């Protein structure tokens, strides 16, 4: 098991190289001169050239990439072009907001999606099942930013119950978390339902009933654990989508998170920060999926023996 985890962490190295190379190249292809942005529109050509020299932007693109990666190896993600602060500390200071948001979104989705999925499966084709299916479809179909705006309109502007943005208190997280969670809720609900439907038809569920277990025990103790494996896969993948959603959401709700930092940095052509944010997302996504894979082993002992 330890060997497996070590192997998986090693496998993150090519992922980081791939992501960074791709993003680096795309950034270099976009129009605009970072040195000009740093120097300001008033600056003369000599100053811009000097800044370009200082930032190493006059070197060949590949050389720039190699230099950047060499810095990464020492834990140095460079400095922001606009603030001059280290990129790492810029990201680190905004990380909690994004994490709380993504975590709250997943929590909302898990707490609503999984129970609804279980109920839908155990009462297949009932009114409740049909209503949940309808809600799920609506949830999936609704664009995130639109839902966010609607929620702000209703709960912040009309009713005045919750703040429309900012994170001065925990209430500030409610609307963004719900917005973020709705799409995932629908996803988790449908996955739980279909997985549960498959499991409750298995022979071992009949065995549990034949032992005299009541329906609650059959579902919660025996069926759910078997049904969760595909659901956990979806949760892991969904976290990637949620991090992407956080970018949009942080903008809509003006939350000072990594997503917001990235959007601002793209606008200012602050290349090191954009790179740093995307690499952070890639690493977090890989780590979450590694965690998911480890979780499988605890849920299903058959998988544990396969991890080598």
């Amino acid at each position, binding site marked *: 098991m330890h060997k497996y985890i070590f192997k998986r962490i090693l496998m993150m190295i090519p992922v980081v190289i791939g992501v960074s190379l791709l993003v680096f190249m795309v950034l270099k292809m976009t129009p605009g001169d970072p040195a000009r942005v740093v120097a300001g529109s008033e600056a003369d050509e000599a100053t811009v050239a000097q800044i370009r020299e200082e930032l190493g932007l006059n070197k060949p693109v590949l050389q720039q990439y190699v230099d950047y990666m060499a810095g990464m190896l020492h834990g140095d993600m460079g400095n922001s072009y606009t603030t001059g602060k280290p990129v790492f500390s810029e990201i680190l200071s905004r990380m909690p907001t994004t994490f709380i948001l993504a975590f709250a979104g997943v929590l909302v989705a898990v707490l609503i999606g999984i129970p609804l999925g279980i109920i839908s499966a155990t009462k297949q084709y009932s009114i409740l099942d049909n209503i949940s299916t309808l809600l799920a479809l609506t949830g999936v179909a609704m664009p995130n930013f639109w839902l966010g705006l609607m929620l702000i309109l209703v709960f912040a502007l009309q009713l005045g119950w919750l703040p429309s943005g900012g994170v001065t208190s925990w209430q500030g997280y409610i609307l963004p978390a719900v917005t973020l969670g709705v799409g995932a809720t629908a996803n988790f609900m449908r996955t739980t339902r279909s997985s549960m439907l498959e499991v409750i038809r298995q022979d071992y569920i009949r065995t549990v009933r*034949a032992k*005299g277990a009541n329906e609650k025990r059959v579902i919660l103790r025996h069926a759910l654990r078997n049904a969760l494996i595909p659901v956990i896969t979806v949760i892991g993948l969904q976290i990637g989508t949620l991090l992407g959603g956080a970018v949009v959401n942080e903008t809509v709700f003006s939350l000072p998170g990594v997503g917001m930092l990235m959007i601002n940095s793209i606008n200012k052509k602050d290349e090191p920060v954009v790179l740093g944010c995307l690499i952070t997302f890639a690493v977090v996504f890989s780590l979450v999926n590694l965690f998911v894979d480890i979780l499988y082993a605890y849920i299903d002992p*058959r998988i544990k023996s396969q991890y080598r």
Partner: protein
Amino acid sequence: MNNHNTLLDIQNLSVEFRTDDGVVKAVNDMSLQIERGKTLGLVGETGAGKTTTALSILRLIPDPPGVITGGSITLDGEDILAASKHQLEKMRGSLVSMIFQDPMTSLNPVLPVGEQIAEVYILHERINKQEAAKKAGEMLELVGIPASRGRDYPHQFSGGMKQRVVIAMALACNPKLLIADEPTTALDVTIQAQVLKLMKELKSKYDMSMLMITHDLGIVAEVCDEVSVMYAGRVVEHGTLEDIYEHTAHPYTEGLFHSIPNIDARAHRLIPIPGLMPDPTDLPPGCPFAPRCSYAVEECSKALPTRIQLSDTHSVSCILRQKEE
């Protein structure tokens, strides 16, 4: 017929499955009795309604689409068809247990086997987890598995071992009736013999009654006291081992015997029963076996044969025997 020595009494049971493609009449007007301490073999080919009958006793027929449309089931004086959900849950696993056909799929893959056995005690006896685990260990030893292996998961056991675990689970609360649904079909022949021997020993040790469902007449001869032969949802012949093996009365039973290899007459070719069982969504009006029966006469396909008593213990449903009378 119904005295206090009868543990299980099924009278005129009918079960159907209402599907989109039609109504499948799985069990039709079926009756059987099992006396205390006795083993009844329920024999018939796949699709004859054996498992459906067994699941009816536990009221575990998947509903929908399965519906018990008529008849009565009395187990140890209790009316099963009138029992409440709670009564049924109390009964399952303590008064009546069932061993299923495929041990590979009948254990929960994500729980240790010891825990799965202990669950029966937790459900039916007021004991705590430690005591239940200890009793589960004793039960494992009883079926020939070291108690320490209770921590292992089903995938770490072989098929025969899994079936032992299932047997341990079924016998944990000392049920009065054990239903074994083709318990050895999925196992190797050598393992089959071991498992059967174990079941026989435990049955006499606990003084249980047993309903042995099988299509293997060899197993019947080994473990059963009485035999009911089932065809298309009905019992076509019933009798003691001697009645069935020595005085075979129904052409279908005869066909079954012709279909098994005989070690004393190896040179003989097997004589299979021609054709297939009738479509249970569209049963013929007469004797359901008539289309495949080499003795069939015209009357056979007109009306259902009535059950005739050949002796105190032996009964058969066949027009030919009616004529002989």
